[in-house]
């Protein structure tokens, strides 16, 4: 209960700051009075590289097994001080929107992959997921040891660089993958707007499959 309350407090704090600034990045679309594109036509960027990683219960999750679902894939680490919790909170808001639209759990899957398996044990990652009220039926937090994770990060150009203070520098991207396993949008973490992502997901679900 206490954990949930703290998580909610964290979420409230994060949401309160959202329009103001994102570290070094400008504020998201929320500050601009809703310049959203309701029915976007999203180009095919490239096939999403396949991977198999373990969830917090040790069960393998293979991306290609999710064909038929729209997948939103992010790369995070739990000790990240600013950007990752902000992103995860926005994904939590998106989870809520999708659930309201009866799309979650269901034809949409959220994946959060830790880039820091050394510090993010399965237990740590599970607690992180709980703090953001991730529904494990549709939002999976994934980790694997470096030898298995490394090639996945490489295929997504998700390099990591450990900084002197222990933080990890890594590209701030999220990937939206259609039901045929193709990357259709890449979001910048700092400029991610879950409202537009929701519309993008709806557009992909309307496509014939």
């Amino acid at each position, binding site marked *: 209960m206490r954990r949930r309350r*703290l998580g909610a407090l964290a979420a409230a*704090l994060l949401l309160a700051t959202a329009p103001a600034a994102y570290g070094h*990045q400008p504020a998201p679309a929320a500050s601009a009075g809703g*310049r959203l*594109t309701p029915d*976007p036509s999203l180009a095919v960027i490239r096939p999403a590289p396949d991977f198999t990683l373990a969830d917090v219960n040790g069960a393998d999750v293979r991306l290609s097994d999710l064909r038929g679902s729209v997948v939103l894939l992010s790369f995070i680490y739990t000790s990240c001080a*600013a950007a990752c919790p902000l992103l995860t909170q926005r994904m939590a808001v998106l989870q809520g929107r999708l659930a309201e639209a009866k799309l979650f759990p269901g034809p949409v899957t959220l994946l959060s992959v830790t880039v820091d398996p050394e510090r993010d044990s399965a237990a740590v990652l599970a607690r992180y997921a709980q703090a953001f009220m991730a529904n494990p039926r549709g939002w999976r937090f994934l980790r694997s040891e470096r030898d298995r994770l490394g090639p996945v990060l490489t295929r997504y*150009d998700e390099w990591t660089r450990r900084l002197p203070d222990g933080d990890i520098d890594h590209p*701030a991207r999220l990937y939206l993958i259609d039901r045929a396993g193709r990357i259709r949008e890449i979001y*910048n973490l700092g400029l991610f707007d879950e409202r537009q992502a929701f519309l993008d997901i709806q557009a992909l679900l309307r496509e014939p499959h």
Partner: protein
Amino acid sequence: MSRRIVIAAVLVVLVAAGAVFAEVCLSPYVKRLAGPEKFLYVSAVDADGRDNDFLAVVDVSLASPTYGRVVHTLGLGSAGNEPHHMGWSDDRTKIWLGALLSKRLFIIDVAADPARPTIVKTIDDISAVTGLHGPHTYYALPGRMLLTFLSSADGNPPGGMAEFTNDGELVRVIKNPVDSPYAYDVAVKPDVNRMITSSFTALRNYRKPLSQWDMKDGGNTLLVWDFKERKVLQTLTTDPVPLEVRWSVKPGRAYGWTNSALGDSIWFFGQGKDGKFSTKKVADLGKGCLPADLRQSPDDRYLYVSCFMKSEIQAWDVSTPDRPRLHDTVVAGVSPNMMHVTGDGKRMYVTNSLLSTMDYSEKFWVRLVHIGPDGRLKVDPFFDVDFTKFPSGSARAHDMLLN
């Protein structure tokens, strides 16, 4: 764990509360420099076109014993390319550098050793890939690069844009509309979902000496796009040849400026309450200026204009965005061209080659202008990187990126 998340949230609050200056005139998707610049990358055209073009690395780390000197050159392996503009990938690990006279495009890694960049990929015939020629602006999108092109593959209008993955695979091509066929710069304002492109001229014109140019063979339009859709919404008119597109750096502000090269003017563009954009001329730069570049201060207070023909750099106060006021001028040398303002807004690096068919000085350099707290400009007398004494001779210094 929960405590850690709360701490993280508080940290975000603190970060949000502070004023954070950012590098301007870069795609908002590019990762920002965490500290002062250490290296300045300069695209360099072999002056007589006989030796290989290159990328010069200038040491700009104040504490370094080689401060202010070229410490490395990365040969591009061929001559006559006219390497021109450059752009960062979103993660700031790679520089895309293209050519205006050849069809080559270079992807350069600067992450492994920022002092000694290496070419990781060369696309030898970008026209075969895109149907376009003359990549100009390299604009990072998340995981991708958006490039403008000045011409079609045959050197004539229309130009257009092409989008690539970060490793150089084509995603899509977007040609300019028939009634607005000239292309040049692109800038995106993600928070209002708008993109604006500007218009120069095509290869058939700019490959000739300036005296032979057809001054009517160029654009006078800005295109307003739905960024998400990559769809033209409006065509706006300016004086001839609007070049740089500079959005206000303030979040949510749907306005900005462009410099008309042949109109010697600054134009303001902005969105009205009806959602439509309009333009108006807001500054006369003086006859014969030929404003080649337009830059901004990180606080959105000043615009900097390089008068290529008048050999002057002007600072315009845009506290009132549609009523610029001339604030200061400085002479850094003959034919100033590209400028690059640091993230703290205190320094501006300047080069002086525009295009081999347009240059009128044979002395090429990179110089430094200090910007005071009062917005006044002062040339650094000790920073003068001579681009005339390379082993291959003289080289035209054009675009710059900081790392």
